[in-house]
């Protein structure tokens, strides 16, 4: 149990990830992406909203996988001590930032991540498993995404630092 509570080294995580990818390929004989699962759940939700009825979930193996990941993450967070109820983004300030800011930021980022995934044919996880299967396109996607994500994250961080420095200057 202590082994589960402790933070693992990155090489332990990497070995476990490789084991799970290979086990998944052996068991399901399909690429292990969560893109189809998320699409299926989203389409069910859309149908439910459009037709005003309770969502009918198509229990494919993708949906089962997503269901398992949800409860696995819940158990993992409890064991690891990472469970924390948070209603707003950690770096948002003020009432509007914590309510409307969080909602808008989440909506826009989620929209972009999924739009990019649809254009590239798979989301990040599916691209990692495809790259492990020697896919040149998946490797290209991973490199492009990580560079783009790094630049965006750095840009946002710099602009926040500038804002906080300006606020401090105003207070002084």
């Amino acid at each position: 149990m202590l082994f589960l509570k402790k933070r693992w080294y990155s090489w332990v995580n990497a070995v476990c990830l490789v084991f799970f990818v290979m086990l998944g390929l052996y068991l399901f004989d399909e690429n292990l992406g969560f893109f189809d699962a998320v699409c299926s759940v989203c389409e069910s939700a859309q149908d439910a909203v459009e037709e005003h009825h309770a969502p009918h979930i198509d229990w494919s193996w993708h949906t089962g996988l997503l269901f398992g990941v949800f409860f696995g993450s819940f158990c993992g967070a409890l064991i690891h001590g990472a469970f924390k109820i948070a209603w707003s983004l950690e770096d948002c300030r003020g009432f509007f930032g914590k309510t409307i800011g969080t909602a808008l930021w989440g909506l826009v980022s989620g929209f972009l991540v999924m739009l990019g995934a649809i254009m590239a044919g798979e989301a990040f996880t599916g691209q990692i498993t495809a790259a492990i299967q020697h896919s040149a396109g998946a490797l290209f996607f991973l490199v492009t995404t990580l560079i783009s994500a790094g630049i965006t994250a750095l840009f946002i961080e710099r602009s926040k630092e500038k804002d906080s420095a300006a606020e401090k200057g105003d207070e002084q």
Partner: protein
Amino acid sequence: MNKLIVFSAMEPLALSGDAKLAVAVIYGLFLGVLLVKCDFSDRVIVKDNLTFKSMRMLKLLLLTLALGMVVFALLRDHHVVQQHIASLPFWGVLAGGIISGIGLGMNGLIPITAVSALASGRIYAVWSMIGMALALPAANFIRNNCGGVLSKFSGNINTTLASENGTWVLDNPALWVAGIALILFIIIAVLGKKEK
């Protein structure tokens, strides 16, 4: 010798029906725990890794690629697993990668980690999931109206890196990529910040 014969006669299990669903749920449970252990469910840690404040996830990704590509080649040669690669146009992957990266850099969440974050108590991940749901009609619109444009102006990028001359030869690009990833991992592990 008998073990070798059994190993070489193996094929993917390729489950189907209810058994596949049941195994997928159990598999997902373990994968969910692993996602939390890898800190993928915590967007603050993911963003720290994207801005190189921490190198933990870069090391994880590099070692996963290096080890995974070699293990996959080994298992594929023994027919334990099979390759599943979809063909996609170059511009689709490039534009998709850039757009996905902007979204990832903004919030640090991808579809599966949004589910994991929600399960870890981060209720705000719901907004990301709603955003993802809203992307589906937009993507359908693009696919119906501009889908042909992307494939018209670009060739297929999803070719395999595996060499036709065999797996364990020097002209196999997959082995080179795995080797480069391993060397980068070692450099970061030796020269980068030490993990506590």
